[in-house]
């Protein structure tokens, strides 16, 4: 087997916070001094020098730290990790958008990426013209694009409007056309990053189909997603990224499990470090999410036949109006079971219309006899409806449901479906 990608000890360092810090601790004097220094700093930095200026260059972050792996030709590799774990940076290094700070990568063949969807599209140009332009930007030869032109148009379903400027397209048409070009690039190595989150269901189905085709043709695929069911379905092997490091490489089910269990301070509890919370979440700060059994103990495995308590602990640094804090529950296959918010009750919403700053716990109970046996994922969402989404983590916590005492347990079989309600069956003999 030939190696398609060989990654050796790559690290990537980013400078952060220069602009962000600048006006945050806004003393006018500091800002003025800073502005006066700017021309000198500028002159020095043109030649790659940094003026000594303590407190200013403090912010470096290692987006990737000593990542190494090999990937054989024709394999499909999943990449999972939380936001900021370095997944996108890794893909950027592989597709040569940015250089690693240290280390090296050997790539055999052309890398095409579905994160480049629509790159270089010009609104004034027609669909036809943009296909050629976009193809050239993605590294295709003119003849190659011409040969695939009809196929691209057909895949995009915009044949009727192919000679209309794309600024007249609906966003769905625009996206379909953009994806169609990227999908027909036919690179030796395909990189897919979350594009599946966009477009309508029918189109998503086509995209996944295309990815399957690519894999079936024996080409190498790297697939990044937060959707565990897609990762499980499409890949046999996955790597887990954590804070810029590759922490695990294993067959996909094992890697997904490892990823879901990571970040749990103890089994059944997820806590958030300050650096895991994006600045955009302000003034909402998630602290922890817990699942508790009927006896009030935090546990990783809970019983189907007993009620389960969910607790979300968070802090508000300023009053928030219209806040709702809630959870998504889904199976590891990615099917949603339910979504629920703490102010779903209209009277309660009225009562907590504005929450003052402070330390809060929102808790609820999942009634007994609801969930089937299996592994579940809890996601968290804090938002003001129609105004702002403060914080979201779709894979916050995973836990198991044990079927002891559940209906039908006297048959040793796996029940279908995510729920296992205890229903009042009545058996009547209608002969009488």
């Amino acid at each position, binding site marked *: 087997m030939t190696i398609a990608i060989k990654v050796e000890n790559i690290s990537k360092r980013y400078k952060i916070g220069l602009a962000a810090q600048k006006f945050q601790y806004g003393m006018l004097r500091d800002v003025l001094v800073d502005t006066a220094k700017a021309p000198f700093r500028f002159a020095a930095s043109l030649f790659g020098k940094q003026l000594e200026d303590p407190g200013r260059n403090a912010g470096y972050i290692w987006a990737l730290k000593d990542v190494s792996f090999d990937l054989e030709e024709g394999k499909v590799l999943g990449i999972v990790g939380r936001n900021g774990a370095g997944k996108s940076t890794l893909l950027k290094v592989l*597709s040569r*958008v940015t250089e690693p700070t240290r280390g090296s990568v050997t790539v055999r*063949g052309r890398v095409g*990426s579905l994160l480049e969807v629509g790159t*270089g599209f010009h609104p004034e140009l027609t669909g036809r013209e943009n296909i050629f332009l976009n193809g050239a930007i993605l590294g295709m030869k003119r003849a190659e694009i011409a040969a695939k032109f009809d196929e691209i148009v057909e895949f995009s379903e915009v044949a009727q409007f192919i000679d209309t400027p794309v600024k007249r397209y609906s966003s769905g048409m625009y996206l379909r056309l953009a994806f169609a070009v990227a999908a027909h690039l036919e690179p030796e190595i395909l990189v897919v990053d979350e594009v599946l989150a966009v477009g309508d269901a029918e189109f998503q189905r086509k995209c996944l189909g295309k990815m399957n085709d690519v894999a079936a043709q024996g080409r190498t695929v790297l697939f990044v997603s937060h959707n565990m069911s897609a990762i499980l379905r499409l890949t046999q092997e996955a790597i887990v990224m954590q804070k810029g490091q590759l922490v695990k490489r294993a067959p996909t089910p094992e890697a997904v499990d490892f990823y879901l269990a990571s970040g749990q301070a103890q089994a059944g509890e997820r806590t958030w470090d300050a650096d895991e919370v994006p600045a955009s979440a302000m003034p909402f700060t998630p602290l922890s999410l817990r699942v508790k059994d009927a006896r009030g103990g935090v546990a990783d495995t809970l019983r189907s036949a007993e009620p389960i308590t969910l607790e979300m602990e968070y802090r508000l640094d300023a009053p928030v109006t219209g806040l709702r804090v809630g959870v998504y529950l889904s199976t590891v296959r990615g099917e949603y079971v339910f979504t629920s918010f703490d102010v779903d009750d209209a009277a309660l919403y009225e009562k907590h219309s504005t929450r003052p700053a402070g330390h809060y716990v929102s808790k609820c109970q999942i009634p007994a006899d609801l969930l089937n046996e299996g592994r579940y994922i809890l996601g968290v969402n804090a938002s003001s409806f129609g105004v702002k989404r403060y914080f979201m983590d779709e894979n916050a916590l995973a836990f198991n449901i044990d079927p002891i005492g559940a209906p039908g347990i006297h048959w040793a079989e796996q029940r279908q479906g995510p729920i296992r309600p205890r229903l009042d069956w009545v058996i009547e003999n209608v002969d009488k």
Partner: protein
Amino acid sequence: MTELTKPEPTTVYIKASSGFAALNLGDLWHYRELIWFMIWRDIKVRYKQTALGAAWAVLQPVLTMLVFNFLFGNIAKMETDGGIPYPIFSYTALLPWGLFATALNSASRSLTSNQNMITKTYFPRLVLPMASVLGGLLDFAIAFVVLIGLMFYYGITPGVNALWALPLFILLSIVTALGIALWLSAINVQYRDVGYALPFLSQFWMFVTPIAYSSSVISEQWQVVYALNPMAGVVNGFRWALLGVGNPPDLLIGISAAISVLILVTGLVYFRNMERTFADTI
């Protein structure tokens, strides 16, 4: 699928570059089609949704010429070389100047205006400023037609020298514009000050170039210093080749050419060195 004739995939080795990066012009050659596509795109969209369309390529130099003619020809009664009528005297200079100024302006902004290409996909970044500079040639050609008309009108016949001299001078202004633009576009990635400084730079540069006036007003001992501005050489060369006035190119044009090649080479080196962080800082 026609997988039968698939060529052996090329292997790419990615690593942190240290010190001065190689110019890697082979890579640029590989992406030559992209340069053409970018030029084509710029030209296609340049006058989209304008009422006058490509007429602007003619109107811009012609209107400037009319203003100059009124101010310097009629009011200030500026002397021209060899009694050439002022309109054609200034228009001959405005042509290469327009090519240079447009190229400089659009190429210096080429990286920042194509941000999403840079942050999302790999290609030699040199493609962008190069395409911007070359894209100005079409406007130049259109405006040139007006010059031919003016020459007919005033009954001026260009010498045979124009055949070899004009391409050389056009090349010189393009090389100069590209060299400066390589510096400015790379700086612009991190410091958007370039966008504010550019109008002043081109205005100042226009004044130190003999467009509205004849370079013969510059005294003899300053001519060498004046030659440090490659555009002065270009403008004088245009007038000499087309109108047959002024001195033929001499050692001074050599100085101009050397200067612009120097700017181009240093610009290339600087650009290549900053290129590795474009995607991170833009």
